[in-house]
């Protein structure tokens, strides 16, 4: 069983929210997407991503969670790509996504772009996804460290997105779970604005609602330069 609480905030600098979040406690599912594209098209892309993946996963047998997630991501990619080609205003739109499926013994998760999944277990914070971004590639090649990547003005360049091409390669992984684990899905509006030590401290707040509200509040205190979305999940 899981308990979920999530929120999406416009932040302080943008005039609209291009993130979209969704979850189902019964279905053991949480999804977060951060859209991009001119003329509000980002909102269209992130909403298609979340609703398509949600529908796909809630209606599947879930025999093989990893391939179900891959299929759902592929299906969402097709839907966004089709819409982008269909409408000039939506041309070039895309979105990141992170999706997590919770079973009795493990989680399966997939991501595209720089939306992230963190795990807090036994007071240890671990980032389970690696951003598909230019600065992450530079970190992997040893050109900079994580803190420098977070502070770089180049951290807005992502190397994979849902919907911009006819095919997408989602990165799908699996991990075991343990009672009391907490999982955090977030957009870069959170992870670019606050340090991982703050994510660690606030994720551990007794109340999940307080944790989510404090994470968003701190991202806004630090500038709130992008939309901020957070979904917190606890294994109960």
């Amino acid at each position, binding site marked *: 069983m899981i308990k979920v609480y999530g929120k999406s905030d416009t932040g302080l*600098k*943008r005039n609209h929210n291009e993130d979209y979040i969704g979850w189902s406690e019964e279905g053991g599912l949480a999804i977060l997407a*951060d859209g*991009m594209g*001119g*003329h509000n098209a980002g909102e269209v892309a992130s909403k298609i991503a979340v609703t398509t993946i949600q529908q796909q996963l809630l209606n599947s047998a879930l025999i093989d969670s990893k391939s179900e997630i891959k299929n759902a991501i592929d299906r969402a990619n097709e839907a966004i790509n089709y819409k982008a080609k269909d409408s*000039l*205003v939506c041309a070039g739109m*895309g979105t*990141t996504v992170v999706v997590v499926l919770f079973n009795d013994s493990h989680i399966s998760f997939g991501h595209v772009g*720089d939306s992230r999944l963190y795990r807090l277990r036994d007071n240890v914070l671990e980032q389970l996804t690696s951003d598909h971004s*230019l*600065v992450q*590639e*530079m970190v992997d*090649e*040893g*050109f*900079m460290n994580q*803190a*420098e*990547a977070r*502070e*770089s*003005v*180049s951290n*807005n*360049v*992502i*190397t994979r*997105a849902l919907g*911009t*091409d006819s095919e997408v390669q989602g990165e799908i992984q699996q991990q075991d779970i343990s009672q009391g684990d907490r999982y955090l899905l977030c957009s*870069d509006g959170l992870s670019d604005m606050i340090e991982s030590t703050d994510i660690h401290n606030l994720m551990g707040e007794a109340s999940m609602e307080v944790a989510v509200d404090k994470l968003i509040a701190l991202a806004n205190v630090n500038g709130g*330069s*992008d939309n901020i979305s957070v979904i917190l999940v606890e294994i109960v």
Partner: protein
Amino acid sequence: MAKLIITLNGLPVKEYPLQLARITIGRNSDNDIALDDETVSGEHAVIQLKPEPSITDLDSTNGTQLNGNNIGKEPLTHGDIIKIGSHQLTFIDEQAQDFESTVILDSPVVMEGEGNIQGAIKLLNGTKAGEVRKIEKDRTTLGRPGVQAAVIIRQAGGFTLMAVAIGKGEITSQLNGKTLTTEERQLYDGDLIEIAGAQLQFISQTG
């Protein structure tokens, strides 16, 4: 810079960068944007960029539509759709797009075979001066860890170069003597790159 994306029956015809202060649109060939379209008047409409971008219909026979409405003169904002005859023109104002908004680096579609543009980097100074390294990957990092970084990006039509900021560090890398930015710049054969003390030359050839 602002531009127009011109489409006919939903298919892209061309992109027109708005470099002039005043751009005329019509069927006659002396217009800045000449549309070969019988439903377009000889002198149909004019776009002015100053003081603010606007479009004016020049009493054309079939009129000018802006986002579905017939207009005389109206201001233009990013994403507006202009209809002139059978042609559609979308006004894109890149400055109106968020500066910090996410950029997607698409994987290029590079066709195998002849006619491909090959790129290489020649080292001009240091102990390995004279060495030539072929660019094999979609993205190739240049620079010195913790000091300066830039990336060469393989595109369908060639190669681009952009600086990547390390933390809050200043970008000092140069292309042909000009400081790079985090915007992509097209690379041409013979271009000189200076990064963290290393001098490099970009070489390209069609192979």
